[in-house]
């Protein structure tokens, strides 16, 4: 019997008990304040959005620091859901919005990758495709910064745990520069030489473009 794998950290939102129907069951005449008052519990709140998350610095983005009347912290009101949406209903709304957003970005990225596969460097078409991708990346970064982290973040590894990667990156950079200035590209190939060779075919160029977009999407999600 195959066991289901653990959900990835990025999908660490736990679905609260109860269904979205708990909101629909309320009288239509109920006001938002009344609904909030009768709600027994707001349900589990991800640490990044809770007061504890703020206290621990997880909800640290400057755009999120809107103080309410009690001196506490809350999220940017432009990103807030209706006050009535609590618990399972809130989870449902956010989950659906997240799925729609991801599907839209994946579709847009796929279209851009296909378009980029038919271009060649140093042409206007290549510049437009790359600039569009960078524009989408910047828009997604701004939106993410405005609305704050969507998932609780794992505890960061200590700096020394990544020291080996830093040393390797420094070595690669030094070797790249040495090759760049050493002489003819054919005798001292740089990373760009290999990448250009790999992106020589439309399909490989499209795949590389998609991989680059996927890396950008991953960066935005962090």
């Amino acid at each position: 019997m195959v066991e289901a794998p653990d959900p990835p950290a990025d999908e660490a939102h736990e679905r609260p008990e109860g269904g979205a129907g708990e909101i629909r069951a309320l009288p239509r005449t109920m006001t938002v304040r009344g609904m909030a008052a009768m709600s027994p519990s707001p349900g589990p709140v991800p640490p990044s959005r809770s007061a504890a998350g703020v206290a621990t610095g997880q909800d640290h983005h400057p755009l999120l620091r809107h103080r309410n009347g009690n001196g506490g912290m809350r999220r940017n009101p432009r990103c807030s859901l209706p006050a009535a949406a609590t618990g399972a209903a809130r989870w449902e709304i956010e989950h659906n919005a997240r799925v729609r957003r991801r599907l839209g970005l994946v579709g847009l990225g796929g279209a851009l990758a296909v378009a980029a596969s038919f271009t060649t460097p140093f042409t206007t078409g290549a510049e437009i495709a790359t600039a569009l991708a960078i524009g989408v990346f910047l828009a997604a970064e701004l939106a993410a910064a405005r609305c704050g982290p969507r998932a609780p973040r794992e505890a960061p590894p200590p700096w020394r745990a990544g020291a080996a990667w830093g040393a390797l990156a420094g070595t690669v950079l030094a070797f790249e520069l040495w090759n760049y200035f050493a002489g003819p590209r054919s005798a001292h190939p740089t990373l760009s030489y290999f990448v250009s060779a790999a992106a020589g075919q439309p399909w490989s160029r499209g795949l590389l473009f998609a991989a680059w977009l996927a890396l950008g999407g991953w960066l935005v999600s962090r």
Partner: protein
Amino acid sequence: MSDRLATIVVWIALALIAVGLEAVALATRRLAGFGAALSRLARPPAGRLVVALGWMWLGWHVFAR
């Protein structure tokens, strides 16, 4: 050994080191994997700016110029 061959051998060695680091990170958890290290770098605003600019430069360099 020609310059070209020596250069390619060094590039392959560096790639193997990267694969080895990732394997050690997965096996022992004493090292950060590449993704975790990149996330750590992108955590402070200045680091995030550097990583974002690096991503943009990479795409422009490879696909546009």
